[in-house]
């Protein structure tokens, strides 16, 4: 090997994608990630079996209507596709954001505690590039985890319950095909709902060199905010809390779709992503790496 080689080579923009590929592959090959995804895939199966047993006993066929997560449960026995909506409604408040918090919280803090961060930076990965790669990977995890819940729910629903035309919340019926499309749209809406938590997790991750501490802090924040969001006294504050519009995805099951809350959710998540993303960048790009 000659030194001339080393000098002659100039980086190509596409080579930068190598790190993203490496990061995504590495994240999804870790046992921890696979365990999280397995738990998420198991939840729809549990919900499906519970509903099946309940109705098999000749128990009361559903109850209550109106909005909110539990509402979908009553529909599951009529149409397996509703298990997708029910499962997303069950996992969105806690399980999904918790697993996103684990991945995001560990993203940089985990590298720091392992010491690999310094080697990535002298490679040189570039601080901004590494941060973007970590966020992009976390967002990929948001989408994959949501899709896994949806697919597991769809498979369970198809096995345990009949499939067919979908009766929307507004009473009209659409074909099963359109129902599937709406299910996909809902999965995407749920994944987008998680981008705010992902940004918070990334920011927390730049603050510490302990992966566990970052994960715990992120999940703790999530629980705290969820509690705040349920206190009526904090009514004025609640529209600014990131989980506030999470269940707006149900509006995709109306005809016509109510875009108002969905748009508010999107805007709120974008705001969190920008604010905490910038904070993460400000912190990470100037931090002394001593670990």
């Amino acid at each position, binding site marked *: 090997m000659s*030194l001339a080689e080393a000098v002659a080579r100039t980086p190509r923009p596409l080579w930068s994608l190598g790190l993203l590929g490496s990061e995504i592959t590495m994240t999804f090959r870790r046992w921890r990630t696979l365990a999280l995804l397995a738990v998420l895939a198991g939840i729809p199966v549990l919900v499906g079996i519970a509903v099946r047993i309940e109705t098999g006993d000749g128990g009361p066929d559903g109850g209550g209507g109106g909005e909110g997560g539990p509402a979908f449960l009553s529909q599951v026995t009529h149409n397996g596709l509703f298990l997708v909506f029910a499962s997303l409604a069950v996992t969105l408040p806690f399980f999904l954001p918790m697993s996103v918090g684990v991945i995001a919280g560990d993203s940089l803090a985990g590298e720091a505690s392992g010491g690999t961060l310094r080697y990535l930076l002298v490679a040189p990965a570039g601080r901004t590039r590494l941060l973007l790669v970590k966020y992009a990977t976390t967002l990929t995890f948001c989408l994959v985890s949501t899709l896994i819940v949806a697919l597991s729910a769809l498979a369970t629903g198809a096995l345990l319950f009949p499939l067919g035309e979908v009766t929307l919340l507004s009473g009209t019926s659409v074909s099963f095909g359109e129902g599937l499309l709406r299910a996909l749209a809902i999965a995407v809406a749920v994944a987008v709902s998680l981008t705010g938590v992902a940004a918070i997790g990334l920011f927390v991750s730049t603050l510490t060199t302990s992966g566990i501490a970052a994960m715990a802090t992120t999940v703790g924040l999530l629980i705290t905010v969820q509690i705040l969001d349920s206190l009526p006294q904090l009514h004025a504050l609640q529209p600014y809390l990131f989980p506030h519009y999470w269940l707006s995805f149900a509006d995709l099951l109306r005809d016509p779709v109510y875009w108002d809350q969905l748009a508010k959710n999107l805007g709120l998540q974008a705001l969190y992503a920008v604010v905490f993303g910038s904070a993460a960048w400000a912190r990470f790009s100037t931090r002394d790496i001593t670990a």
Partner: protein
Amino acid sequence: MPAPPAPGPGPVRPPVDEPGAMPAPAGEWAIETQGLTKAYRGGRRAVDGLDLAVPRGSVFGFLGPNGCGKTTTIRMLMGLIEPTAGRARVLGQPMPAAGRRVLPRVGALIEGPALYGFLSGRDNLRRFDAADPAADPRTREERVGRALERVGLAAAAGKKARAYSLGMKQRLGLAAALLRPRELLVLDEPTNGLDPQGMREIRALVRELAADGTTVFLSSHLLDEIEQICTHAAVMARGRLLTQGPVADLSATALGSHGHARLTVTTPDTADAARVLKECGVTGVEVTDDRVTGELPHPDAPVGGTGDGAPREVAELNAALVHAGVRVRGFGTARASLEDVFVSLTGEGFDVAG
């Protein structure tokens, strides 16, 4: 099995200057700092006004007691820590500003290896290579394979890194530094955790790399190691640079008049021996038990300078002793070791600096 180490430290090994070995280096310094300072909260200065100059092509030993600021310096050079004051240039470019251009040409092992335990050795290298935007992915496999072979890890490349011994981890860390041809290698205690065999191999590797024209900046607390493979050295203590220069000069400047080779004669006739040696111009003669030691008068003085009548050759001293009837059991000279230099400079041995 790499070649055995070259004989002794000897005089300064001249910096590699074979024509064509390096593509017209920009500037003569591989690393150059001016007033480099890092103060931590509370004002404690981990590094204080460091003026370091590492010549291109040298094997540069960076010495100092634990906690003296060596690693902080290395981290500042690599752009991991922002200096409080002063500036640093690596391969002629300012750091950390030019990190993206400079760091691909630098291989580094900083404060021991750090690996992904859940990845195999080979996957670890793939990952670090992917992090370098200047590394061609088309040649990645080949380069990873070559780096693994170079450090003797080819056979264990498929094992998970968490199952590696410290020595193997150290080798894998070195392999990561060798993924691409480098102009500068920064190695922080590269033989830490290795068995003697491994240490020899790594030293041979460092020599080999240096012979290719790579500048090697080596921090170590093993003075033997520095003495064996380094052409230049710097000594740091309490955040300050005490001295730097070619290893041979270092002993002279640091030890002053005591910097020259020291003669040791083992004999039962110590009194006679001391007298004869003094007559021959040996200074600082001391007698301990059955040994007489003293400073040789300018053994390296240039030929032509006529002397004071003192014997020019060490062998003549021996002849003089024998002639005077002194029974010589042992006779030898030793240059002041780097350890002597080190202790005389830092005066604190290897205690952790406060």
